[in-house]
């Protein structure tokens, strides 16, 4: 039983962390352009241009 007192808050905390991370990624616009994100990996960065 005593293990649970540690484990349950730990589980909830980690879950909450995931939720917060998701909300953050949503707010910062990371889901705005899913097609573009898939293509950008192919764009050559041309430094110094």
């Amino acid at each position, binding site marked *: 039983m005593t293990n649970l007192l540690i484990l349950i808050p730990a589980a*909830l905390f980690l879950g909450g962390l995931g939720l917060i991370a998701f909300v953050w990624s949503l707010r910062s616009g990371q889901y705005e352009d899913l097609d573009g994100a898939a293509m950008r990996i192919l764009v050559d960065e041309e430094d110094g241009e």
Partner: protein
Amino acid sequence: MTSCRSKTNGRLPDISFANPQAVAKSTDELSGFAHEVRPGISRLELVVPDMHCAGCIGRIERALNGHSAVTEARVNMSTRRVAVQWRSAAAEPAEFVDLLQTAGYASHPFAEREDAAEADRKRSRELVLAMAVAGFAAGNIMLLSVSVWSGASDATRDLFHWLSALIALPAIAFSGRVFFRSAWTALSARSLNMDVPISLAVILAGAMSLYETIGHGDVAYFDAAVMLLFFLLVGRYLDHRTRARARDAVSQLVSLTARTAAFKLPDGSLTPRAIAELAAGDIISVAPDESLPVDGVVVSGTSDIDRSMLTGESMPETASAGTRVHEGTTNLSATLDIRVEACGGETLLASIIATMEAAEQHKAHYVRLADAAARIYAPAVHITALATFIGWMLVGGGDWHTALLAAIAVLIITCPCALGLAVPVVQVVASGALFQAGIMAKSGDAMERLAAIDTAVFDKTGTLTLGRPHLTGPAALDVEHLGLAAGLAAGSRHPLSRAVTAMAAQRGVSPTPLDAVEEVPGSGLLGHRGNQTVRLGSRAWCGEAPGDGNSLENETPSDDGRLELCLKVGDSRMVVLRFEDEPRPDAVQTLAALKQRSLKVEILSGDRPGAVEHMARLLGIKRRQSAVDPVAKARYLQKLAGGGAKVLMVGDGINDAPALAAGYTSMAPSTAADVGRMAADFVFFGDNLSAVATAHTIARRAKALVLQNFGIAAAYNVIAIPFAVLGYASPLVAAIAMSTSSIIVSCNAMRLRIGIPHSGRDTASGAEPRQPAASARPSDRSAA
């Protein structure tokens, strides 16, 4: 990928033609779309319909970032828009449009209706947040529930139930609002929708589980209630996204119609004036390549007028003093002064739009499959749950506790998880597949209607054909002559000139530079090489006697639909160039494919009978009508509909708009007139007509999958309900049943992709160097 590069090949140097007046006008217009995000920094979103690959992203961003005033340029591929931010004082918005034009991309500002867009974003954010919270809660409660199911008892079980309640109740209150609100609206209107049983199930399950927890009971449905919310929210969100995307697509299609005209003051100088302020009798000046903002009569100037959008007529007509001209046509070769006769609501275009709106209202209201299903389903769920409750009360001799638990179990089990996902998941996959094939669907029910068609009616000019003539002969045309012709044609906007330049670019012949090139609208072009005179135009223009049996006007095609242009170099024999308004590259195959699916195929054109006959013979279509006016087109479609036919109308011109609106469903190429694109349910990009067949295939498959999904959801209920009614639906059974059915339905939807050409869009542009929309149809360039 590589196809992108070809975009700049064969393009006419458009920029050099931009007259100062046109630029001034567009700057004026564009400033209205820019807004300040921070003091001194402005932001503008430009729609770039032609971007479609990683190369495009790079090129567009580099082009804009190359401007010294730009602080940020970011492409959004999903919406095909680029957002530019710049130091307001250092640049005018029109410069960015020009930059993109130079890079080979036509663009126009994105005009979003702020309030609608804002409401949309708010709703989207609400749904995603609700979904995230429900997902979080469902995961954590499931963790606790698994322990309960695997044997936790007494105090441990109570503790876990309490913890579950602590997570579930706030989550239900937060995430459930979407459903509660909608259910309440439905109930206040004394009707039922899908959200009523959902809300009932969730609230009753929550309340009952809390009661059980307080009384140390051994079953709690917290997990089921929250998981139900989660799955339903996923479906709701996907549905919302599809619709938002469709709405987005619509707002992108509204490119700018001319809002100002160059008003001619008595002293002859020009000043921009809003169209709305023009009155009959005013004189306005229309530069080459502008579309006419009013109906009127030409006062001075001679030019070729492209009327194809209005009438379907493929060749331009010459307008000179005294000619009546109409709004929506495009001025091609020289500046015209026009006396306004009608503007705004009184023009021919406005009357066509009025016909279109009337046709739209006559359309029978279509009931979406999902709504039709919900109408049967929601009452069935309530009746079953109520019957379960009453049944258990009778059997158990008034044991309301057991009866209520069984009724809640029925509500939860029957709750339409799979049903809620059945349609949205398929639509997301289908619209994704359409999008990749270069087709934009404006609504989900359009897709359902497309699946049901039995007749396809095509317009000719611009739909079956590319709407731009193509140089077809003589086959042995030598490089020198082609070079000379291209040298003359380079500065002209006449469709035949464009065809010559395009052919020269395609064969890699560089235009021969000529001196003192001049264009005489209605006759031809004239230039000099050394002391030789080079002429390109009608037979008469090239010095052939008018009496040799050929018409004076070079635009008049002979009866088989062929067009010609003569080239005369010095005193040597003239060369006759032949043109054809080619059918789209895969028109024959597409029509054959449609016929194979036992669809009736017809041509309904506003063009001359000769040209229509020729095309119909070429494509093997028996049912055809020519010289049909816009109203008659719409009336014909209504007649077909009256006879029980479900007609797909494919057309592009202003003259097709009423028919597009009258069709059971409709489709237009992206080169279509604004009104046409607005009226159509689907818009396809690229030159390939196969988009019509592809869209039909995808729509039919989507419908089949939706029906299958309904079947799966129904089968699931048939199996699960007896368990629930008899009281065997423990929380564990409910959880497993719910998630499996949802997953099966989603996986089934994914099958849509199998066997669908994955990158129709890329092959379309690869086969034929796709030029920016600008050179396809002059009228698309209104924003440039």
